[in-house]
């Protein structure tokens, strides 16, 4: 047995989907987290409901790195269909645990092999046959706990959380886990070097997924209307709203201050959201690529009629239906140019679960301020996986309601106002919303050419003026959108830009690059488009800029080349698009290969 490896390896569990293994896997993840060990969990699941191979990888990192790793030191195989592949995937020197009813030849002697009598132990659990497959998963939790040293108490905490404290469920699952652990203690001899040990590196964190965070952010952002249509990986944004809005946003009398509508499709979803936004509600729709594409026409209406609305896009692998359960950052160019004619869409790029919460409310504020659709690009990895994250922070500014005139305001103005006039020099005009009873409040909105009074016109000059004002508004947005997060050490000559869920991998790669001979790197995590001054300065500052992104075509590189043409020759792409979350190793190698 080689030197002990503590809190610094990955565990992958291979099961059949629809078998309930998610509960077992998340229990492991949470137990480790409660032991104070930095963890991350990545669920690799198929696009069907039951019967296909699925994998869950837990990374433990005492240094706190939470990006995906390719290497798998401990592998648990519960699925005959993927058994050979799983066996082959174990790192030399690693450990392989498997359900002993799977009968395959095992041809590796460089790893530790542990068969588990899963069926037998599960049968002993004495549950209904319907639950037996499910409970079998608890066996490997127990065996792993025993073999790696996961504290039983934290497992119980995890179970208790999962089952919302329902004692019966907790006990029955825990019983099986215990049985698994006991069996392992008595029957398995540890020959691998991997183990876990309590640390204190997670007490300032919580565990959550980005979609829940987005929904909660919106709850605190005063969301009043959400229209959506089911789609992986975005459905859980709306489903979380269905959970949390009733808990936190009903009045004392139990009345709703919001409405959530499942629309008949995404065209209708964005239409309803834009209708509500026009009506003065803080409004949102959540979707993924195919739905986003269906929203193209309405997005242009939102831009041109200047309607506040948030479009929360949880990206999955496209083009087309693509790989619905794989992650990507491939919708950037589409969103940037969404809808026909000229338009400049505003995009937010959350890079962590905490930021999903923050942008959840901020996007609603920005929409209200800028009277414009705000597109937020999350992704499957960020949205659906459980992450350890800084706790959510109560918004540090009051709700931003934007330039809305009510009866009293109009009274003060003697009823003189113009819907599309740039009175303040920021490109943002004042608006009124239905229900305003002042006799000068009403206006007739439209997606056709209009003058400052919102009247229909085909006049060339009115058209150009209005479009020029919209451009000015986009410039105003530049100063309002989230600034980038920059990490630049002394002496850095080369820049790296990344965004969204790529952050942990880039961060880890930087730690490595710091250690090797060669140029020093500065890192900017982009958080929004249009580019703020800080973004432009960062780009101007460095000799070369690597743009790391999760798509084939270097979508952000394309956009930055277009908006900063003078800097374009400096850009280098590091593109990764196999559907899996980025690893630090890949980032490091992609950059080093081009630096040679």
């Amino acid at each position, binding site marked *: 047995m080689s030197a002990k490896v503590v809190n610094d390896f990955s565990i992958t569990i291979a099961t059949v989907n629809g078998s309930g293994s998610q509960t077992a896997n998340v229990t492991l993840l949470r137990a480790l987290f409660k032991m104070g060990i930095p963890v991350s969990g990545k669920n690799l699941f198929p696009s069907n409901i039951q019967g296909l191979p699925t994998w869950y990888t837990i990374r433990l990192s005492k240094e706190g790195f939470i990006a995906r790793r390719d290497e798998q030191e401990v592998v648990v195989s519960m699925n005959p269909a993927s058994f050979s592949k799983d066996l082959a995937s174990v790192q030399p020197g690693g450990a392989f645990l498997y359900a002993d009813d799977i009968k395959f030849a095992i041809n590796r002697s460089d790893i530790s092999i542990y068969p588990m009598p899963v069926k037998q132990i599960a049968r002993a659990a004495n549950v209904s046959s319907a639950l037996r497959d499910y409970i079998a998963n608890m066996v490997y939790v127990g065996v792993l706990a025993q073999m790696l040293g996961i504290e039983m108490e934290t497992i119980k905490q995890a179970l208790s959380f999962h089952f919302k404290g329902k004692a019966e469920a907790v006990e029955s699952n825990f019983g099986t886990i215990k049985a698994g652990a006991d069996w392992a203690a008595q029957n398995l001899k540890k020959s691998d070097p991997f183990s876990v040990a309590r640390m204190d590196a997670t007490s300032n964190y919580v565990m959550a997924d980005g979609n829940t965070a987005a929904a909660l952010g919106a709850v605190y952002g005063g969301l009043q209307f959400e229209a959506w249509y089911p789609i992986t990986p975005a459905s859980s944004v709306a489903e979380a709203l269905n959970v949390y809005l009733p808990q*936190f*946003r009903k009045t004392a009398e139990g009345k709703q201050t919001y409405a959530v509508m499942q629309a*008949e499709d995404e065209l*209708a979803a964005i239409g309803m959201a834009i209708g509500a936004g026009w009506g*003065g509600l803080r409004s949102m729709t959540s979707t993924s690529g195919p739905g986003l594409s269906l929203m193209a026409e309405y997005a242009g209406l939102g831009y041109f009629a200047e309607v506040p609305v948030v479009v929360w896009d949880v990206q999955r692998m496209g083009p087309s239906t693509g790989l619905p359960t794989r992650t990507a950052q491939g919708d950037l160019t589409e969103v940037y140019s969404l809808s026909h004619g000229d338009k400049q869409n505003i995009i937010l790029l959350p890079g962590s679960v905490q930021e999903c919460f923050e942008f959840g409310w901020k996007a609603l504020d920005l929409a209200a301020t800028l009277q414009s659709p705000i597109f937020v690009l999350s992704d499957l990895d960020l949205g659906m996986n459980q992450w350890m994250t800084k706790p959510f922070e109560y918004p540090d500014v009051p709700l931003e309601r934007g330039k809305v005139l009510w009866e009293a305001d109009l009274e003060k103005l003697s009823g003189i106002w113009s819907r599309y006039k740039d009175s303040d020099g920021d490109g943002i005009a004042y608006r009124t919303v239905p*229900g305003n009873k002042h006799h000068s*409040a*009403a206006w007739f909105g439209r997606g056709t050419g209009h003058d400052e009074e919102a009247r229909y016109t085909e006049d060339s000059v009115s058209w150009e003026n209005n479009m020029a004002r919209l451009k000015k508004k986009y410039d105003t947005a530049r100063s309002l959108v989230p600034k980038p997060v920059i990490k630049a050490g002394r002496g850095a000559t080369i820049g790296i830009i990344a965004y969204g869920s790529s952050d942990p991998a880039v961060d880890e790669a930087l730690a490595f690059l710091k250690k090797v001979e060669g140029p020093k790197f500065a890192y900017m995590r982009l958080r929004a488009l249009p580019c703020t001054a800080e973004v432009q300065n960062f780009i101007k500052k460095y000799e070369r800029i690597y743009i790391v992104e999760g798509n084939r075509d270097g979508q952000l590189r394309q956009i930055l080349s277009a908006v900063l043409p003078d800097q374009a020759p400096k850009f280098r792409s590091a593109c990764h698009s196999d559907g899996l979350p980025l690893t630090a190793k890949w980032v490091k190698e992609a950059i080093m290969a081009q630096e040679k």
Partner: protein
Amino acid sequence: MSAPTTIQTNKAGLTKNDYRGLPSTLCQGCGHNSIANQIITVCYDLNIVPEEIIKFSGIGCSSKSPAYFLNRSFGFNGLHGRMSSFATGAMFSDTSLRSIGISGDGDTASIGMGGFKHLVRRNAPIVYIVENNGVYGLTKGQFSATAEKGLNLKHQGINQYMPVDICLEALASNATFVARSFAGDAKQVKELLKAALSHHGVAVLDIISPCVTFNNQDNATHSYTWGKDHEAPLQDISFIPALDEIEILGEFEEGTVREVSMHDGSTILLKKLEKDYDPTNRANAFQMLESAQQKDWLVTGLLYIDESKPTLTEAYNLVETPLNRLQDSDLRPAPETMDKINAMMF
């Protein structure tokens, strides 16, 4: 009033002018213009405060017409075929307002079919008017989905398909108010509009509204001539607002009138014509539409009504205050809740 004036006002203290819109840019004689005029009259007659109406439309000649009535109402002329979704969202902003939507047959029955069906299914509280001319006016005369089989149009050839029947579609989607009328029958349009404005839920009005420029040949089923020759009204309709005395009832012979009570206290009086027709029975309505199709009748009147179903917005237990007037404190949970939320996260 302080000084004598010759300008007539209604009980809301408004003149007819307060209900008008911009001058129409539609063709002279277009059915849509006469419907816009009826809306003006009806809102005036019913003493509706224009600020309490929201107007919606899609894209088309018909969809332009909300600009030509109720200048003092908010309104939105949206995307082609998408009036339903926009209106559905917008009506949540202040549920004390009433919604009027004007769409075309192309807008509703071609591109907008899905949205229309789902709006109806949800019983969204809106007066949904289809200004049905069997043709695309604004794009210059192509077949819409309500064009009759065999219709021959310039550059387009002969239509091969059975027309979409807006009323049948509304019924199939469990509409709670379904009526058909004819722009050439101003009185009926007016009474049906009044009833629709009192209805609790979605009121679908399919109004045959001839396009004089592209589809008004005498033998076309959406023409003035055909309509006049083939109209078969189900009833003679009078609408009695909630507050008016119902003395008027006395005027009718026993058994010749059917009374329908509305949710808001108004009454629809349906005077029997040739046959009695019960508009509260959905099976009847199906039957009637089926036989009208076979007999080439333009059946008009109130086909179906059900005042008892909850509307879309009622299904959401909303606060009294219009949502769009809620204060920051109503919209953002208190700071104390933040810890609770974080604790819920594990």
